[in-house]
């Protein structure tokens, strides 16, 4: 067993680290302040092959594995988790179309997604308790050799910037659990993106509700088989939960490094606070949390890369990181005291980005059901 990255994985991680230093560090505060979508940066991500990292070479991808993917997400998140989140959501769409799409769907969208010419959005959540249930659940009605989509998708990331949506709808109201995935062009008549939500964290990664007001799509817009959407969504969201855990580790690591630097510079009682035992305990706990979280994360990623069952491990990682992420931020903020609480420092942004990463998708305790189900 080897817990270290391979040489290629290490170099890919280094490339992501260098990319983050050059392209993300200079703009991260501005991005957090304005919430503007970083188009030029997304294009640069594509130029460096990050958007096609997980896809095979024949569609323009780099063909690197999932361990490399999470290493990249962690490295980008250390500088700007919002950009990492945009990339994750882009990957969810390109992965779904590449795996379940028809040749025509792949041809139309996958290469454009890899090149950053099109942004993708994964539209699964609704205002109801679960997709398919609720007054505005997205429903697809068969009509004129195609489908008409009506309903609203909630909290869709990359909404408004996306050129293509993978949206999940019920095709039979008697079967609300049987979702069908559709590939919907953003220009489709009746597709309306609501106002961008003023989110707490991950600012720059747009979030909005998307209304489908009698959007007509051809039968060829169905992704995979009719009523197979639940399996597609589960698979993609489980993969995404591991990537989001990488986002959390990256944010935590950034907080730790900043707090350690601060502790070495801040002098109290005649010496740097880094020499005080209480501060050392906080830093040591945060470092331990990041280290162990990264091990779990990479272990789950390796299972995915080896095409082995990974669902339980992904749930464990998500659950663990959802709790740990906030703890790391509290600990590191404590190290910096009142100064760390100030918006002049990066910790408040990192705090909000942790919240955006761990709270926006399924609730943090949701994976516990999957873990418990696997052991009892």
């Amino acid at each position: 067993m080897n817990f270290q990255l391979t040489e290629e994985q290490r170099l890919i991680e280094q490339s992501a680290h260098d990319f983050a230093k050059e392209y993300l560090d200079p703009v991260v505060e501005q991005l957090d302040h304005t919430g503007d979508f970083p188009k030029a940066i997304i294009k640069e991500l594509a130029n460096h092959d990050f958007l096609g990292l997980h896809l095979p070479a024949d569609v323009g991808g780099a063909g690197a594995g999932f361990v490399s993917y999470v290493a990249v997400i962690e490295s980008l998140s250390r500088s700007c988790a919002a950009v990492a989140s945009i990339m994750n959501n882009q990957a969810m769409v390109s992965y779904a179309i590449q795996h379940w799409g028809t040749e025509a769907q792949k041809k139309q969208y996958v290469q454009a997604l890899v090149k950053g010419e099109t942004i993708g959005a994964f539209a699964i959540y609704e205002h109801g308790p679960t997709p398919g249930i609720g007054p505005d659940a997205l429903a697809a009605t068969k009509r004129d050799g195609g489908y008409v989509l009506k309903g609203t998708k909630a909290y869709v990331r990359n909404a408004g910037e996306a050129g293509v949506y993978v949206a999940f709808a019920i095709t039979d109201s008697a079967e609300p659990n049987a979702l069908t995935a559709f590939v919907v062009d953003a220009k489709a008549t009746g597709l309306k993106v609501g106002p961008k939500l003023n989110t707490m964290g991950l600012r720059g990664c747009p979030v909005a509700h998307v209304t489908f007001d009698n959007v007509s799509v051809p039968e060829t817009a169905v992704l995979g088989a009719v009523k197979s959407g639940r399996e597609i969504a589960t698979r993609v969201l489980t993969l995404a939960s591991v990537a989001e855990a990488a986002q959390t580790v990256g944010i935590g690591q950034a907080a730790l490094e900043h707090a350690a630097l601060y502790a070495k510079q801040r002098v109290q009682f005649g010496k740097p606070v880094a020499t005080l035992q209480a501060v050392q305990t906080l830093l040591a706990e945060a470092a331990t949390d990041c280290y162990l979280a990264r091990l779990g994360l990479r272990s789950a990623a390796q299972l995915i890369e080896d095409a082995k069952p990974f669902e339980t491990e992904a749930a464990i990682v998500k659950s663990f990181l959802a709790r740990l992420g906030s703890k790391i931020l509290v600990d590191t903020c404590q190290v910096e005291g009142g100064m760390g609480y100030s918006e002049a420092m990066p910790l408040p942004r990192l705090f909000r980005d942790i919240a955006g990463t761990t709270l926006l998708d399924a609730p943090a305790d949701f994976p516990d059901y999957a873990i418990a189900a696997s052991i009892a």
Partner: protein
Amino acid sequence: MPKCLVCYKWTLDEKDIKIKPEDLSLDTSRAKGKISDFDRNAIEEATRIVEQHGGTVHALTYGTSAVSESLKDVLSRGPETIYWISDNSAETADACVTANVLAAAVRKLESYDLILCGEGSSDLFNQQTAARLAALLGLPCITYVEKLSVEGDTVRATRKLADCTEVATVKGPVVLSVLGTINKPRIPSLKQVLGAAKKPKKEIKIADLGLNAEQLHPKSIHKTVKGFVAKRKTIIYREANAAANVGKLTSSLAAEGLL
């Protein structure tokens, strides 16, 4: 079309080196390796020349066993073939030994139009390797290069000196040492990183270079290396009036001859 060779050094990343407070010795146990900073510029410049004019870029390095960690990193940045010499002698090699080894290796390889080095290494910054290498190979040497162009067999280099810039033009094979300002090294794309594994990596054994013991014996030896920690005076002026504080600060700086 120019045939370029880039000589580079694999050094420890200084940001990972810690200074032990008890004796100021360096703790390098957790330091990772990196391509020496200016050598990265040399690789980038050679790659840009070949992208513009065609030709080839090869890379050459001499180091301890750790140098094997550098090969894919370098190849991902443009060179199509890498030659590497790994030997324990590199542990104590000075610029003289390094130049002897590199020159002997270059003589075994094909002839190159441009041999590029970084102006100085990130660790020792002796600024001697390029000049010594050129002398051993009997080639002209242009140092402190901050701008470079190639037209046919003519190389035109702008040198950044202490108080002026100088343009040097030379025909034929030449050794150049470049500054960090000459370019901005690229961040390799993932395809370039993964493609590096397929490029040729050729090891040259030091025993095959025909060097004698004298040529591998360093003329200068580092017995100890100690870190430098700046001691701050931590003076705080606490006058209520900002102008008075500034006055005290400037007086203090003037008293120390800094103004």
